């Protein structure tokens, strides 16, 4: 790891000033930054430690909304009683991510800035071509081993999968990220690669994530996060789904439904076609399975990741069926 200068920001204003410096990167939990610095993927000139800023780790949950400070640890949010009861998909996405140790380190704000696990992105010594690292250098994944790569939101520049779990649940429930002078939908905060694979987030120099806010809803209260992977635990998703469901008084007609996907797209992926196909419909397994297939409209595979196109709709259907059974 190349050395860097280390500065500690004691307050959010200092952090914003520092974030505007050329070559500066913010350090919160360090689980992405230190990892990628060791891989040689990032070489910050200055690391700004924001982990000691007080008051940024609060978790404040009411029926109306969850307000989560950027420095709250993943583990604390996952185990928070009101998050579990009012936003179960958020808790489930968190405790199924990474390991207990990493969740004690990683912060909610840092989690939104997590980078892809694309093995070509992570290995600059052996794979110099990566449009995410070096715009215009090409994509080593296309034509390479693609079993873990995305099928939705891909471009000719990049097919790297967004690896996180939390943001999938956030996107499903219309959460917003607070950047100080700007507030964005989490869905808009993440950028699909297009021709600019190096731009993963709509965040500008001098901006610092201070909090996320998740609106409360009946669908958020009755929600789940299902994650299918190669191992039972401590692995990134092959496909995952955050689903929330609100039924009419008859107990089977869909009033509101939220569906978002992880592990298959270049960003946390809201599946509105599935939602639209199910709103107002009475739930039965055939209807659910047919609607779930719509999530794969526009999917493009690169051979080894073809299985994701079959897998993801089944994960969605499993989540909806699970919520329907727990009426």
């Amino acid at each position: 790891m190349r050395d860097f200068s280390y500065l500690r920001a004691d307050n959010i204003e200092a952090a914003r000033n520092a974030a505007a410096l050329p070559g500066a990167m913010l350090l919160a939990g360090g689980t992405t930054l230190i990892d990628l610095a060791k891989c040689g993927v990032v070489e910050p000139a200055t690391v700004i430690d924001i982990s000691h800023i007080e008051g940024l780790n609060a978790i404040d949950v009411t029926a109306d909304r969850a307000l989560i400070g950027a420095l709250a640890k993943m583990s604390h949010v996952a185990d928070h009683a009101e998050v579990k009861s009012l936003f179960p998909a958020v808790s489930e996405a968190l405790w199924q991510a990474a390991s207990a140790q990493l969740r004690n380190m990683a912060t909610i704000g840092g989690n939104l800035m997590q980078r892809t696990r694309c093995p070509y992105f992570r290995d600059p010594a052996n794979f110099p071509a990566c449009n995410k690292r070096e715009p215009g250098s090409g994509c080593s994944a296309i034509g390479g081993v693609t079993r873990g790569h995305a099928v939705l939101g891909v471009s000719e520049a990049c097919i790297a999968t967004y690896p996180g779990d939390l943001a999938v649940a956030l996107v499903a429930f219309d959460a917003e990220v607070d950047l100080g002078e700007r507030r964005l939908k989490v869905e808009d905060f993440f950028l699909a690669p297009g021709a600019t694979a190096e731009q993963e987030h709509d965040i500008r120099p001098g901006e610092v994530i201070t909090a996320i806010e998740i609106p409360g809803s009946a669908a958020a209260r009755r929600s789940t996060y299902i994650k299918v992977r190669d191992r039972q635990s401590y692995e990134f998703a092959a496909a995952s789904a955050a689903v929330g469901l609100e039924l009419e008084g008859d107990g089977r007609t869909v009033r509101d439904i939220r569906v978002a996907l992880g592990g298959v797209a270049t960003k946390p992926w809201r599946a509105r076609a599935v939602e639209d196909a199910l709103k107002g419909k009475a739930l039965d397994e055939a209807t659910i399975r047919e609607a779930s297939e719509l999530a794969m409209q526009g999917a493009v595979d690169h051979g080894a990741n073809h299985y994701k196109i079959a897998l993801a709709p089944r994960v969605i259907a499993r989540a909806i069926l699970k919520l329907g059974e727990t009426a």
Partner: protein
Amino acid sequence: MTSHIQTIIDPPEDGHFRNGVATDGLIPSPTTLSLNLAINGRDHALDVEPRVTLLDALRERLHLTGTKKGCDQGQCGACTVHVDGERVLACLTLAALVDGRTITTIEGLADEDGTLHAVQAAFLEQDAFQCGYCTPGQIMSAVACIREGHAGSDDEIREYMAGNLCRCGAYPNIVAAVRQAAQELR
């Protein structure tokens, strides 16, 4: 405390950290940090480069080699230690990040008279290792797992101990040891 951003432009004479600052621009040059690490009840003053991890500080500078370096990439759990009572990975933790925090390593787990912690005793009793390299990390993780209340069943133990890999495959005995210690500590 003054904002450390000021140290970039106008370094204080005796700031908390001695950050050497290039005067011809806004980018400070790498230099040495003076840290105070509170480890196993003892304070350790240490001058390190900013890039030094807690793991390397423990092993190479303080000769606390009970904490193991496995993958050094946050994937194996061999370097698990406690910071302010919570389990973390020392290989992805900058030493500077935990300046002033309370750190416990495997060396700090037993009583001063040598009486083993209940988790250490359970690992011995259940033969929860083969080569032993992952064991300090397994034990530090298990102590926290039980304290968190995440050792209520074998399935929960497997889930919440998933961040500690054992290449010898001693997992059944590790689960048995954590289950036994959790019952004893209840």
